[in-house]
């Protein structure tokens, strides 16, 4: 579904942010992207969305990343931003949700149908006509996910989906993520959430892949994590008396 081949990227004149990256993610996989601040997580996401372009080849859903394919790729990939305020710019949740589908050519009725479907599935029907500036942080995050789902993407990228949420809202988001059948790539420092949502983990350090394997094995490897400015997920730290 996603393939990176020898991808490098640097802001002009500076040291590369990601260097010679190669990995592939198959359909339906749920992959956690972890690493210290500045390890290159966001850059990978932006490369995958065509917001940045570097050297090497990137394939998404069988399409090579280039100018012609970009609109198609962006239709295939949904990106849930870290700050939902930046994602939800229209007055109401409904208007935000039809923004993508309408821009990709759906009629008003088709878009409306999608909105209702997604909201029903997520149990958020009462949010439909609420104002984006008046809903709570937890509702906003769920609405942002709904906005992306309304585009029916095959791949979903999420940047820190669990930050700044209270425990109940965080759990709701985790449960929602687990019900999504799409291919998922989740960048986060919340390793407990990664453990709960991802089968596979890619650990980055200084723009390179340090480890790539099952979440169980990597997230239990205290030595590996600590060597890369991470620590064990809290649920595995076993703080007994």
């Amino acid at each position, binding site marked *: 579904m996603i393939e990176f081949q020898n991808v490098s990227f640097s802001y002009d004149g500076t040291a590369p942010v990601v260097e010679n990256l190669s990995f592939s993610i198959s359909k339906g996989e749920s992959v956690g992207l972890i690493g210290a601040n500045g390890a290159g997580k966001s850059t990978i996401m932006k490369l995958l969305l065509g917001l940045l372009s570097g050297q090497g080849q990137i394939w998404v859903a069988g399409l090579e990343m280039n100018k012609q394919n970009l609109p198609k790729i962006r*239709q295939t990939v949904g*990106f849930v*931003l870290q*700050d939902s305020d*930046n994602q939800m710019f*229209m007055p*109401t949740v409904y208007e935000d949700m039809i923004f993508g589908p309408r*821009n990709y050519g759906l009629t008003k009725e088709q878009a409306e149908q999608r909105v209702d479907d997604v909201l029903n599935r997520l149990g958020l029907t009462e949010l439909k006509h609420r104002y984006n*500036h008046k809903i709570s942080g937890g509702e906003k995050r769920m609405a942002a996910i709904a906005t992306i789902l309304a585009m029916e993407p095959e791949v979903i990228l999420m940047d820190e989906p669990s930050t700044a949420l209270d425990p109940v809202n965080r759990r709701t988001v985790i449960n929602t993520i687990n019900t999504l059948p799409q291919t998922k790539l989740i960048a986060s420092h919340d390793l407990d959430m990664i453990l709960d949502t991802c089968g596979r983990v890619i650990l980055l350090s200084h723009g390179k892949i340090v480890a790539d394997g099952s979440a169980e094995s990597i997230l239990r490897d205290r030595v590996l994590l600590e060597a890369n400015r991470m620590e064990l997920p809290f649920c595995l730290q076993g703080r007994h008396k």
Partner: protein
Amino acid sequence: MDKLSHAQSELREMDALAAECSPIHALHPLCKLLVTVFYIAVTVSFPKYNFSGLVMMVLYPVIAFQVSGIPVGLCFYKLRLVLPLVCAVGLANPFLDHTPLLQLGTITVTGGVVSMVTLMLKGVFSLMASFLLIATTSIDAICAALRKLHVPGILTTLLLLTYRYIGVMLEEVTVMTEAYSLRAPGQKGIHISAWGSFLGQLLMRSMDRAEELYSSMVLRGFNGNFFYADISPFCLNDLLYTAVCAAAFLCARIFDIPGLLGSFFVG
């Protein structure tokens, strides 16, 4: 920084009022917008000595406030911004215009006093009318009405986007001023040494935010089009309301109804 929290609560308040239900709320936004603008135009068009005629105009806001259930008190709080300039201009009139207009016992009412009072009334009335508009109409409905009036789409979209982010920005500014004042006790405002960096930092963060916002648009296929929810069509009620209001305002403007009433009683 009281102003920031005031602004936030004022915005919340207006949002809450606009979300209520009443016959006035249910009217088409375009009809409310037109009636309001027409009302204000008629109100300010009264000649400066025509006090009695102007008084007639109080009826529209009073009735509309009652029908819509909007508390009148709230709007007087907003007078604090408009009234100073109006007063500054109006207060000079009694000193400069000594034309005697009316003899009340031993007191002579001069033209200056009358024109001062009518000026202030005009200020109060126009404020009441515009407050009523926004208290019964949401900003997106107003923008829909503006689009119907062929206001450029860029402007209405910008209005909605800006309104959307005002809350976010007020929050950011509040957080930063709080952080500032916690480390600078006793200072009333921002010290000159931080004049540039304070807003500058916020500005640069906003630029990053704008960039993210733009990618969020582009990633969802943005090519210059925005799609809004439909508003209900202009129906008979709206037409009737507009016509009745317009006719009433014109009558009040042409005939000095309070004067006629008065002369009927005084003889």
